[in-house]
């Protein structure tokens, strides 16, 4: 098993993601190939989602 210290950028992203998960329930993303941390999923604004749902076109 290989261990290495986190790089500064990785550490900041992980801490922010863990904080977001604990305080706001934001999702932590894992790389399913090696389970490494790959960030957190950003929230998507309601307006963006609702606009897309309302404008679903007719299909043939």
């Amino acid at each position, binding site marked *: 098993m290989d261990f290495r210290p986190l790089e500064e950028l*990785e550490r900041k992203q992980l801490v922010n993601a863990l904080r977001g998960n604990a305080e706001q329930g934001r999702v932590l993303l894992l790389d399913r190939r090696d389970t490494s941390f*790959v960030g957190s999923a950003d929230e998507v604004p309601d307006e963006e*989602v*609702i606009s897309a749902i309302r404008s679903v076109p007719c299909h043939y």
Partner: protein
Amino acid sequence: MAFRDVIEAVRREVRRFLYPPPPTPRAAKVAAKQVIGPIARLVVADEVSRTLFAEYAAHRASSRGHEEIGWTLLGIRQDDEAIVLATLPAGVNRSAGATHVQFNSIAQELACRIVRQSHRQLMPLGLLHTHPGSMRHPSDGDYRGDINWVEGLRGGQGVFGIGTASEQPGRVPAVHEQERESLTFSWYTLSAGERNYRDVPVSIEPGPDLALELRTVWDEIETHAGRLNSLAGQLALVRFAIGSGSQKPALIVRVALVDNARSIEVMMEGKDVRYFVADGSQIMVAEFRDDRVDRGVYAMLTELSR
């Protein structure tokens, strides 16, 4: 620490702030994964896959089985993958026939609001609809609508599935197809400005259909969607839930009052609409009836403000 050391430490911090070290390849890889790239792979949660096949089969066996049917797909974008984690059905009040389907978007909007209460990262990824024959590719008519619609999606790209039913023993599904018994889903992506759809490889991985529970109150969602969408748009402290009704699961809307200690709760079960006031552990039934939920809530707010 000598004053000179303090000055040097401050200088060092200022230099670090102004000239941060470049990210290492590993750190750069992590940072790059935050960016949404073109969809190279579609991942469907296994519960989503089961839901889609089961509902497609049930639809075909129903009295409206000759009509086209469809679903809106919600999920997340990660790296170069689109991951489907929730499905919203077209609804009983869809407009559909043998050659078209238009989803009940008002009901899907409400369903989307409900499922995103707990999963704010979910976004529309695309659509799945069926064709009555064996044409496994979107039609020209599909393209004319989809090419405009994808402009409003993240990355200007969407995922589109076509469901077909035909017996072809021994046929091996392609990498962009899912097959179960006689049913096939064929998957494509379409990006803004593209002239045609592209096949997208699909895989099934363990995961939920986060909108599955909503099926138990879908009748109530379709009945009250317009008024509940208005309520959710006009008031800030509106939450939805699914609770136990007297005969079946009930759709509940909860409007917290400004003091946050009390809330108005409306329970919708079938055609029945009942109003309550919750105050801590005490729940009081409101002795009045109004099937128009938004008007009922505003009447309750007026009463409680006296």
